[in-house]
């Protein structure tokens, strides 16, 4: 280990190996969709966990984001005498950007970390080994229901987040600051098009895949690289899952935006 070039090489190989394993993980998951056990009830359970239980948190976040957007928008726009465009500003920011990104970050923090911890514990307690020894496909049993659930729940959560945020903006813009309700909605409908909704939807689908992929992967391989399977392996997996998911959400948000806007 004294030779730095050797160390660097080993480090590089390790990263490549990790990336390969990460890709293979997704392939096994896709294959798991078509394998037993049955998915219906597990998916329902995961939708409840991922989606329903995030409603309060996402709603709270959305409401205050919409409110603060209206506040900021009104302050800036009123300097140009165009405070009627508050509705447009709130709507566009939420539907295109903040709705998907904030929901995804909240779901990562609340559900993604729990997914990584839950599966990580199953790894260190040999439960995943036990599944394999029972000839049950661990991907099909553990990962697939969470994937399907998040693909269903995330777009709905994002839509809900958009609606709550826009109503929050209405509350501040119209009720507190005195923009007329008609102007608020006119501004909104004149500037938010289907292509914007489409962009938000695309983002929500991509983020939901990223979150579950990263969080289940981190849990699944908790402690495997290090070779010791203590509780610290789970806590490390959980932290890594949240950090990595959040970063990938922000990076992919930029990429998707640039592709959809300029292509």
């Amino acid at each position, binding site marked *: 280990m004294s030779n730095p070039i050797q160390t660097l090489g080993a480090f590089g190989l390790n990263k490549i190996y990790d990336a390969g394993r990460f890709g293979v993980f997704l392939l096994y998951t896709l294959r798991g969709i078509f394998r037993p*056990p049955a998915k219906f009830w597990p998916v329902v359970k995961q939708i409840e966990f991922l989606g329903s239980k995030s409603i309060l948190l996402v709603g709270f976040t959305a409401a205050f984001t919409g409110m603060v957007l209206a506040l900021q928008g009104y302050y800036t726009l009123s300097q140009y005498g165009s405070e009627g465009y508050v509705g447009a500003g709130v709507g566009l920011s939420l539907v295109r950007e903040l709705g998907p990104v904030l929901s995804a970050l909240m779901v990562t923090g609340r559900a993604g970390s729990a997914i990584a911890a839950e599966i990580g514990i199953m790894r260190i307690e040999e*439960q995943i080994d036990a599944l394999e020894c*029972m000839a049950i496909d661990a991907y099909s049993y553990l990962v697939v229901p969470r994937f399907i659930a998040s693909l269903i729940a995330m777009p709905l959560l994002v839509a809900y987040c958009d609606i709550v945020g826009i109503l929050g903006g209405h509350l501040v813009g119209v009720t507190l600051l005195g923009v007329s309700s008609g102007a608020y909605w006119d501004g909104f409908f004149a500037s938010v098009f289907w292509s914007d909704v489409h962009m938000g939807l695309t983002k929500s689908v991509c983020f939901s895949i990223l979150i579950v992929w990263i969080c289940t992967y981190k849990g699944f391989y908790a402690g495997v690289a290090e070779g010791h399977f203590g509780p610290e392996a789970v806590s490390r997996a959980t932290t890594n899952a949240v950090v990595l998911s959040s970063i990938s959400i922000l990076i992919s948000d930029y990429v998707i935006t640039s592709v959809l806007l300029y292509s």
Partner: protein
Amino acid sequence: MQSENLIDIHGLNSYYNDRQVLFDISFGIPMHQVTVIMGVSGCGKTTLFRHLTGLKKTLPGKIIIEGKDMGEFSEAQLMRYRRRIGVLFQSGALFNSMTLYENIALPLRVHTKLADETIRIMSIMKLNMVGLSEFWNYMPSQVSGGMKKRAGLARALAMEPQVLFVDEPSSGLDPITAAGLDRLILELRETMGMTVVVVTHELESAFKIADRMVVMDMGTIMAVGTPEQIQASEDGRVRQFLNREADPQDLSVDSYVKCLLDRRE
């Protein structure tokens, strides 16, 4: 009691990254008998166990199961093999989001098309066998370590396996519970002719259940034979292993305490 081997191991080596932990392991596992693999902790027992259950990849030609080479198993073959084995892990490995009953019913639900009622009866029967039928509705977190292990055994037996693999049945258990597990293992061999492979570092329990013993040390095989042969072995290292734990009464107070500390893994 001679019988043909179910599994033959020929010169198995095993590595974690660059570190070799098993060196040229060879022995046979006879059918319908209890084979006990013993050795101090860290000598590679669990690693060997993971090769035998297909959890760690084995090179071709090293492990032969009923004439078939495990190193060349296709995925379908591995699945078929696993449906014939039951595995009890060191910690029990129960799924902690399910009740004991659901844990045992899971393999039946996935692998059979039996009616719910039949699955229920079969699972309760298995729980009954390990003396836990009253606790069917408990979560794993609500029962003791010994009960978890017994429930794990019930789950391992759910699919009526021909071969049972057990990792450290008595570690972390009080002597009475441990003796109960030993008795269950013997019963399985007697009543169903099950082939049992037990990995343990506890000598007392090993001598109670073994038809055949394999003594390991630092990743190598030190001795193979019947309990009587092992007991009578003249090999210095085997004697040292047997004496270290078997007769703590003969030791001085200091070494007795040390021996107890060692045992805690």
